[in-house]
């Protein structure tokens, strides 16, 4: 069974649908790229998958023993974060909170877990640095490390390369691909299709018309649409 199956989803704000009759499924190990115009409902879809919003109608089913706590999230940066006084270690560790219940302090295991994730994403040497003083690419890596502390099976990424220079954004995509290669299922929103599509195995195009299929099918579909 597929990891995530969405059937006939309608999404919207306060009953006004922005997106209707959306169906797609994601298997373990997939790399799904979600593309579409601004305001087409990409972020709304992601928040619905994360159970931050409830769909107007339709169903999201999880299979293969996937639990909500297995899904990690890389949100877009908020204004609050840009001048937040916090060290890299504090932020990455906060990803471990969700598996802790009421214990008030971090265990040695969790500290080790955070350490490993930081090293894996190449921000280990920045552990004591202040988050707001890092470059955009480093900040995204820190948030990615936090997401990996929270969950390791599925990652939902909302514009991971937004605001990065071409080189940093290239590195970010390569890093995400490497994680995908290690077995992490990726769902990523991107409007920089030229840079992100080469890595994807599947594409979901939101808007009219809706499209869902493999990357190869999408390329053929686009060719057909333009010629």
């Amino acid at each position, binding site marked *: 069974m597929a990891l995530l199956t969405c059937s006939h989803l309608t999404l919207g704000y306060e009953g006004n649908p922005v997106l209707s009759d959306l169906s797609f499924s994601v298997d373990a190990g997939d790399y799904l790229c979600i593309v579409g115009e601004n305001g087409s409902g990409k972020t709304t879809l992601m928040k619905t998958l994360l159970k931050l919003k409830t769909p107007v109608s339709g169903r999201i089913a999880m299979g293969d023993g996937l639990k909500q706590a297995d899904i990690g999230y890389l*949100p877009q940066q908020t204004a609050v974060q840009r001048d937040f006084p916090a060290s890299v270690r*504090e932020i990455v560790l906060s990803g471990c909170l969700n598996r802790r219940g009421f214990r008030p302090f971090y265990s040695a295991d969790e500290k080790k877990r955070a350490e490993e994730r930081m090293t894996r994403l190449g921000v280990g040497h920045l552990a004591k640095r202040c988050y707001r003083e890092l470059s955009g690419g480093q900040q995204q890596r820190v948030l990615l490390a936090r997401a990996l502390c929270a969950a390791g099976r599925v990652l939902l990424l909302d514009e991971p390369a937004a605001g990065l220079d071409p080189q940093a954004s290239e590195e970010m995509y390569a890093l995400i691909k490497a994680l995908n290669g290690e077995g992490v299922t990726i769902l990523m929103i991107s409007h920089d299709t030229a840079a992100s599509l080469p890595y994807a195995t599947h594409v979901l195009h939101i808007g009219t018309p809706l499209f869902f299929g493999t990357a190869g099918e999408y390329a053929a579909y686009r060719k057909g649409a333009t010629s």
Partner: protein
Amino acid sequence: MSIAELFQTLGYYFQKEYVVYAMVVAVLIALCSALLGVTLVLKRFSFIGDGLSHVAFGAIAIASAMNLSNDFLLVLPVTVVCAVLLLRVGQNAKIKGDAAIAMISVGTLAVGYLIMNLYAKSANLSGDVCATLFGAASILTLTDTEVWFCAILSVLVVTAFLLFYHKIFAVTFDEDFSAATGIRARVYNLILAVIIAVVIVVAMNLVGSLLISALVIFPAMSAMRVFKSFREVTVCSVITSVSCAAVGILISIVAGTPVGATIVTVDIAGFALFCAAGFLFRRRVSA
């Protein structure tokens, strides 16, 4: 006045019970408000403290009109309810957060003053109002009950903050991420709202309702000039706040100035010092 005389004066005052009470209460309040201030400032909620203190003012007016034996019994629940409402409204786009706060804040101030006027108990109405707004000398006339009440609430606030420290950090830094990965962000926002209300009500005794925001905001802002991790900022903010409150009380005792205003002025001076320190520190790092 020479140094020896100064210490003699202070020694004389500290033999009096009420001065010791004032000192203890001031330190506790400064501690709580600084702990919370960091989160409030970072969440962009600085004005909620201000709004809530006006709510507390309105509630005090009603309590005194109703001749309640202990004002806190009415003031605390009313402020807690308003804190919860304000934080919820902040997330709802129908009435924008800042407008809602402004409405509640001036609304309760006006109604509170009106009620105080209609049911004036003492001949010195403007003195009473002034004391509630600016704290005046009320800290030096604290009763046993008030000191205990303040001490217990402070212990509760500090305990709650320590127990939930990491969660408060996570929810402050990134509410969406926390909620998405299974932390009950709403519950912690609610806990925060309740703690804020408690701190405001307790702090009203010290500096009065118009000056509370200063206690909440200045120490946090000072600490953020220099320190860069959440923990350092929190610790530094607490130390700054407690020292400023202590110095402020000493000055106000010796110089006979109003307690609340003196403490806030010391806080402002502290902020200026930290700004300068931050500036010098950055220059040395970049040079």
